[in-house]
């Protein structure tokens, strides 16, 4: 895959989106993501992170604005959203990424299999291809889901809190995979609550119903975080660490 760095893979301008007509769950979003970049998406629960992803995938009605994408967009869910008791192996899950490219009446065949194997190789799980998905560790499952997105041949990846509920060493491996994908020229949007993590990425989009900011991580000041999270956050260590108060919504 050619790197093509600097080429804009995703351009979003004045985007508003939401399920109900007239009521936008998210408004005025403007940012861009070049090839070879990781952009953190910060914001409180219900702040619009999920709506942004759904809108970029074309699954939430877009009310206004423009979205320009170069190539396909793939979605990487949190592992606990996938069924652990489902009788599929890691390779089976990676192959799901090739389904859309093959017409339903044609078996996905050798080409799809090879693409899925290459994707597993890319995330360092070639040796676990035959293991049942539910028997992998949380971090390995997350990497399998990233492999599935790679098998989709997408250049833009949307990752939904890929590090939540994953232990330290596994998180490091996932971040290592993301760094390699950045080298390959993918553009990644990573929704997260971990502000420390966001500082290590290339850019940050802050959402709170509407876009609060699109800045380089160096400009992620305590004041900006306070505006993003409202009263839901406690900032420690002069802004280096922040604890987000999680709200359970029913």
């Amino acid at each position, binding site marked *: 895959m050619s790197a093509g760095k600097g080429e804009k893979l995703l351009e979003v301008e004045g985007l508003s989106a939401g399920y109900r007509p007239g009521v936008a769950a998210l408004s005025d979003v403007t940012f861009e993501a070049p090839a070879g970049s990781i952009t953190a998406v910060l914001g409180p629960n219900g702040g619009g992170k999920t709506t942004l992803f759904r809108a970029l995938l074309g699954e939430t009605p877009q009310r206004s604005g423009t979205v320009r994408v170069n190539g396909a967009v793939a979605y990487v869910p949190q592992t606990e959203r996938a069924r652990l008791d*489902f*009788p599929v192996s890691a390779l089976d899950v990676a192959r799901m990424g090739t389904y859309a490219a093959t017409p339903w009446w044609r078996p996905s065949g050798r080409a799809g299999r090879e693409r899925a194997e290459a994707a597993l190789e890319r995330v360092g799980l070639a040796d676990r291809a035959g293991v049942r998905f539910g028997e992998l560790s949380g971090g390995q499952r997350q990497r399998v889901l990233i492999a599935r997105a790679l098998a989709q041949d997408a250049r833009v990846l949307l990752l939904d809190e890929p590090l939540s509920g994953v232990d330290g060493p596994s998180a490091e491996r996932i971040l290592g995979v993301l760094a390699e994908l950045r080298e390959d020229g993918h553009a990644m949007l990573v929704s997260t609550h971990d502000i420390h993590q966001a500082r290590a990425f290339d850019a940050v989009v802050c959402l709170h119903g509407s876009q609060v900011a699109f800045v380089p991580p160096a400009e992620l000041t305590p004041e900006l975080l306070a505006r993003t999270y409202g009263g839901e956050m406690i900032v420690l260590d002069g802004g280096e660490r922040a604890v987000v108060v999680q709200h359970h919504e029913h």
Partner: protein
Amino acid sequence: MDLLLDPLRNGITQRALIDLLILGVVCGPLGVWVVLFRQSYSAESMAHSMLPGLVVAALIGAPLGVGAAAGLAVAAATIAIASRQRLVGPDAAVAVAVTTLFGLGTLLALSPQTPLRLGELLFGDPLSVSTADLLASAALALAGLAALAAGHRTLTLGGFDPQSAGNLGAGPGAATWLLLALLALTTLIAVQALGNLLVVAIVIGPAAAALQLCDRLVPALATAAAFAVAAGVAGIYLSYWAELAAGASIAICAVATFGLAAVATSLRGPATRRFLEWSSATE
């Protein structure tokens, strides 16, 4: 040997065995999806809810197959709507739908004007299958298998991770609709042999057994088909030798496949667990 060959010598049991073969091949694999999608209640309800269609057909002298098809169309649509109900909860909504339709069928069937035996409709009789029935069943089963093959990816995506299904090329909700339509189709094939109370046995029993034993989809689908056929054949023999109601015998055998699989997995359980601990320790 005679014990095995006797039933094969008469046309009635021959046809019953062929019918169960057809049934098993399509009900087994479908059941795997039903179990994975947590739609066992819908499967059970679907069969119950077709009762008004059967009774009306019997009352006006229409072929039972036509009544069953009409009853199932109503039942499938009602359950599809009910299982999307968020306000009262899908299970309560399905309960309301099935209770109403089943009650309606019973009222029609037991009102004094109808000289009809409700029992046959409820419990079925595989020994009443005619050659024409067999041909119809075979055609429907082929259609069902074709739909299962064509819908395999949609079902896989929708069952494993519905949130991402749209992004991976499957329409949202498509899997559930496909599943309910296929359930209606297989219930139509199976109802004559098993009756509307027992159809769910051949759908769920072998599938739950296969899912105990297999940890990949395609082997599970094939194993479920084999178990369903085996349960059907064993049920016919059981009813022949022990002179028991045939539909009930098949249902008992279908549940027994699950019991056997559960025993088998608990016997091999400790060994499997040791192997897994060993293989994950060597990573």
